[in-house]
């Protein structure tokens, strides 16, 4: 009797290898996108700027999907308000981009963004100070969603709000934020939000170099987020999270503070969602209160369900696959998209509870057992 038994703890789960090679293929494909964009335009492998920017957006969505999977797939916390953390990260970077417009705005004011001049505001509100520094804005893009999640989570988890009740109040949270950000007197540009950005770190946003740089930054962020999440879910803490998902009260009975664990993972997840939003906004060039729309959060949950809840590569796959399908379908049959999305969710729930990843792994296993 001995060692080899407990070695089971150190290794990954069955199917880990399939997940890893899949991940590698995706990583190589995604890393190739900006390189192919550098080819001459008449080359058969050339990818246009448009493809680069669309793929860059999807990568941000994949980070958001990872963040949702971390709490939902592993800890059983279904947040239907993660779009709010994403939007807050986006708004924080948006504030920096607005400050960087400087006197190049329509009204030419050296400090105030156009919408403030339009509203006859005499000076910058206090909470806009500091955002002229990129590092500060980048920090706030993570800190604001993180802090909101910490406070919100503390109130909810401490009162043992779980399951569908938690999902509902997260919807209410993002809805309330949407209404708040629609208001002009909030100082975030009302329903127009922020747009008309000029440059970031001194480089114009529209240049191919900047597009590639943002793309690469997003891809790096996705890889680091993936590695971080993988470290977490394969640690003992990750096993406590799964245990909480399976039988919360039993975990409490073993002496673990379920509230502390949920708070940790929920806050971290919100920070990742904020990171995704911060990388997204410079690439799309706009952020407005529509990002807080409850439907956005639900859509992101569907990506995770489609890809495969509870597997990190599943979340990434889901975000890429669903958004790929969406891009294609909204050009050929825009009216159908919402039905397809709903149908997809139902189909996955009923037929493929482990999502696309589950399907791939099952096929792999069947091949393995084939002889």
């Amino acid at each position: 009797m001995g060692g080899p038994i407990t070695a089971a703890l150190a290794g990954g789960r069955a199917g880990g290898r399939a997940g890893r090679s899949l991940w590698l293929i995706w990583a190589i494909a995604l890393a190739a996108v900006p390189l192919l964009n550098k080819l001459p335009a008449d080359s058969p492998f050339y990818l246009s700027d448009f493809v680069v920017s669309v793929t860059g957006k999807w990568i941000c969505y994949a980070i958001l999907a990872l963040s949702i999977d971390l709490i939902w797939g592993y800890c059983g916390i279904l947040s239907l308000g993660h779009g709010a953390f994403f939007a807050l990260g986006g708004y924080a970077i948006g504030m920096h981009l607005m400050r960087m417009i400087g006197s190049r705005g329509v009204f030419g004011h050296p400090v105030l963004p156009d919408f403030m001049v339009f509203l006859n505001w005499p000076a910058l509100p206090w909470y806009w100070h500091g955002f002229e520094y990129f590092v500060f804005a980048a920090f706030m893009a993570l800190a604001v969603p993180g802090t909101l999640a910490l406070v919100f989570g503390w109130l909810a988890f401490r009162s043992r709000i779980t399951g569908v009740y938690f999902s509902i109040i997260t919807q209410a949270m993002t809805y309330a934020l949407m209404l708040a950000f629609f208001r002009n007197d909030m100082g975030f540009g009302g329903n127009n939000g922020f747009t008309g950005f000029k440059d970031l770190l001194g480089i114009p946003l529209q240049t191919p170099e900047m597009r590639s740089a943002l793309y690469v930054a997003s891809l790096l962020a996705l890889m680091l987020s993936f590695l971080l999440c993988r470290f977490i879910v394969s640690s003992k803490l990750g096993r406590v999270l799964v245990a909480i998902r399976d039988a919360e009260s039993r975990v409490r009975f073993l002496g673990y503070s379920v509230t502390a664990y949920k708070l940790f993972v929920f806050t971290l997840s919100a920070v990742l969602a904020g990171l995704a939003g911060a990388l997204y906004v410079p690439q799309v060039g706009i952020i407005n209160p529509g990002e807080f729309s409850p439907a956005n959060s639900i859509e992101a949950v569907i990506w995770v369900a489609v890809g495969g809840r509870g597997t990190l590569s599943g979340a990434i796959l889901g975000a890429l696959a669903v958004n790929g399908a969406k891009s294609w379908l909204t050009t050929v049959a825009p009216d159908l998209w919402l039905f397809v999305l709903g149908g997809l969710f139902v189909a996955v729930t009923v037929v493929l509870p482990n999502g696309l990843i589950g399907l791939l792994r099952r096929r792999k296993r069947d091949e393995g057992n084939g002889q």
Partner: protein
Amino acid sequence: MTTPAAPAAEPVLYLDGVTVTFDGFRALNELSIVVEPGELRTIIGPNGAGKTTMMDVITGKTKPDRGTVRFKQHDLTRLDEVRIANLGIGRKFQKPTVFDHLTVVENLELALKGERRPLIVLFARLDADERARIDEVLTLVGLTARARAPAGLLSHGQRQWLEIGMLLMQDPELLLIDEPVAGMTDHETHETAELLRRIAGERSVVVVEHDMEFVRALARRVTVLHEGRVLAEGPIDHVQNDPRVIEVYLGR
């Protein structure tokens, strides 16, 4: 009435004159029980005799109206459930709860004594002692061959053993086990009796059970509860031939 197993040893569990009433109904009525270190004690009694209530009193879930409840030198009536659990009293409830999506080993790992704060648990690695402890418990509960299986794939009996294993990881001095063999096959019932005999000795075990076959297989000192008090106590053969016990069991 009690004969000390080891002379001069302080009892692990000492209940005297314990009374619990629910809305005027006496669930426990001047109950007195003494359990010695290393003893394996079986508690039997008809439904409603107060067996579960007795466990609730020991674990601090229910406070007695009066009476003495001591674990070694600790007065349990003054402590809450968490403090009592930390003193070294483990309790297994009737319904097994293990973590279905974790393997047997991982279930045991989470039950290990030690640090519980998230940021420390995030970087926790099993040291040699902890691995040895897990392997030891795996062997003890007979789940070595199933170590890597997700708990969700275990049979009903194996789940019960895993849960007993999880209690053992915390190294309790006293284990309280409520109806472990309900729903088990005959074979599993026998295995469970073997398991409990193995784990007693280093620690005291109190088992509540209906199943006479099982009680017989345990072959240890039996206490019969009836209407919240001790009706008879002694070896199973002695107890089974007691006319009062026969009346209580067969008279209904």
